[in-house]
């Protein structure tokens, strides 16, 4: 395995949208080895504090040289403390299994809300694998246009992006799945709220497209020891662990 426990220097920790932050830190080993879809466990408590006790899992947003980016929303005590950190963070990673990005064929990246966090890295990796920008379709849904600060990061890379909002303030007025009107064979990679991923997976099933989902749960260790991050598999009494079996799953392998 290739996992690192490190104290990384924070290069930037800025608010990029309402309660939405982008943290950039320097972690060469992680930047070099991470794959799209993998995550890091970040200690949010200040040094020598036992509270909050557990690390928080964040998917890697993208990497650039020695730099690693994560995108997070301030939702509770841990992320509130994280938003104030300026110097260093204590983290473990890269953890879990990433997306399997096919070498060829049409690739659709479907994100909802903060689910776009790992998807920029997917696009980055696909391009790095030699895929033309035009072969990648990015579909992003959100409640309202204010939640779209990262959309430009996709466009800047020359990717085709279509958006949908619940309130019609940007792009298509409706659900992101309504943008999935493509023809032909597609591999669909998705991350977002559970109802959205369910809908995406259903659409893929109808069209016979491969669908990979990235799941999120509460975790304690992030490395397969505590077994706390169980999710329902597709058989009765079958559990999968988001940290080691995932966080990326074939949609058909888990009960969304």
């Amino acid at each position, binding site marked *: 395995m290739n996992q690192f426990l490190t104290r990384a220097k924070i290069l930037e920790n800025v608010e990029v949208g309402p309660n939405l932050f982008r943290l950039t830190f320097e972690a060469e080993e992680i930047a070099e080895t991470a794959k799209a879809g993998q995550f890091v466990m970040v200690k949010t408590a200040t040094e020598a504090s036992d509270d909050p006790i557990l690390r928080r899992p964040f998917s890697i947003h993208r990497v650039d040289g020695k730099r690693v980016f994560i995108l997070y929303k301030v939702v509770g005590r841990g992320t509130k403390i994280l938003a104030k950190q300026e110097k260093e963070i204590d983290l473990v990673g890269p953890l879990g299994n990433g997306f399997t990005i096919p070498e060829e064929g049409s690739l659709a990246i479907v994100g909802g809300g903060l689910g776009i966090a790992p998807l920029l890295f997917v696009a980055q990796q696909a391009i790095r694998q030699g895929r033309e920008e035009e072969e990648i379709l990015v579909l992003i849904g959100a409640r309202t246009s204010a939640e779209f600060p990262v959309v430009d990061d996709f466009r800047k890379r020359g990717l085709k992006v279509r958006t949908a909002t619940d309130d019609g303030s940007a792009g298509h007025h409706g659900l992101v799945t309504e943008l999935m009107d493509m023809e032909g064979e597609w591999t669909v990679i998705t991350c977002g709220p559970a109802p959205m991923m369910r809908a995406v997976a259903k659409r893929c099933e109808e069209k016979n497209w491969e669908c990979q989902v990235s799941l999120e749960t*509460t975790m304690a260790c992030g490395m397969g020891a505590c*077994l706390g991050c*169980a999710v329902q598999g597709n058989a009765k009494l079958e559990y999968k662990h988001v940290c080691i079996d995932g966080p990326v799953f074939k949609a058909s392998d888990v009960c969304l």
Partner: protein
Amino acid sequence: MSVIKPNLKVKIGNLRLKNPVMTASGTFGYGREYEDFVDLQALGAIIVKGISLEPRPGNPPPRIVETSCGMLNAIGLENVGLKRFVEEKMVVLRRYRTSVIVNILGDTIEDYCHLCEQLSDVEGVSAIEVNISCPNVKKGGVAFGTDAKMINQVTGAVRKKTDLPLIIKLSPNVTDITLMARAAEEGGADAVSLINTLLGLAIDVKTRKPKLANVVGGLSGPAIKPVALRMVWQTANAVSVPVIGIGGIGSTRDAIEFLLAGASAIQIGTANFINPAVTGEIVTGIHDYLRDNDIKSVSELVGAVILPEG
């Protein structure tokens, strides 16, 4: 100035360990999970995730919830079962040249006996830790771990099935843990380990539902350390077999506290989730503490707490 190399070796019954630092069952997987972070060979022992005769799927999610300075878990004893443990996990564990202690769990005394019998023949198993702190028995659903008579019975029964050092892991969810420890000692235990988790509950005030699917769960982490330390101290004064201290240990200082309270060795649990390198750091920390304080052997610390006179 003479530089002494402190002796960290400890003896638990017939079990000889290179140092008193072990991993608590269920917090260190089967060892391999931590090999990127800890020199496993440097540990006193690896105690593996509890094993039952047959694989167990565990409880439905959510299984864990964070609490103030601690966490509640209701994993439900998910494990790969004896067969896969022996055929897959043990093969890897043998490579680390560290003592491996197998934690076992069952629904009946017979289950425990079968597990002991079969594990006794497995190469590389150094000792058995019997988890009587979780499951229920056939007999009217009386929990093993909270009934001194049952503890005595199960200990006596497994004692007959193995010559391996036998550690009985005790539950803190009792009025007087020393009675449970004595029952284990009288049943033939080589050591007792304590404490397992404290039973707890957390409720989501928005949904009014318990935060764990299992409703209740076991509390662990720094939050339980003072309770654990008190119970270890009481137990060490009540039995003559070695006591292994567990409960909220996350630093060298915590570990030393348990030794002073009377623990002959310690287990590190929840702290592994927070700092995956913690076990190795505590081994080094104990070494440095002994060296800096001119203490020749870790055994000199065991029970060396200085109490007020009178």
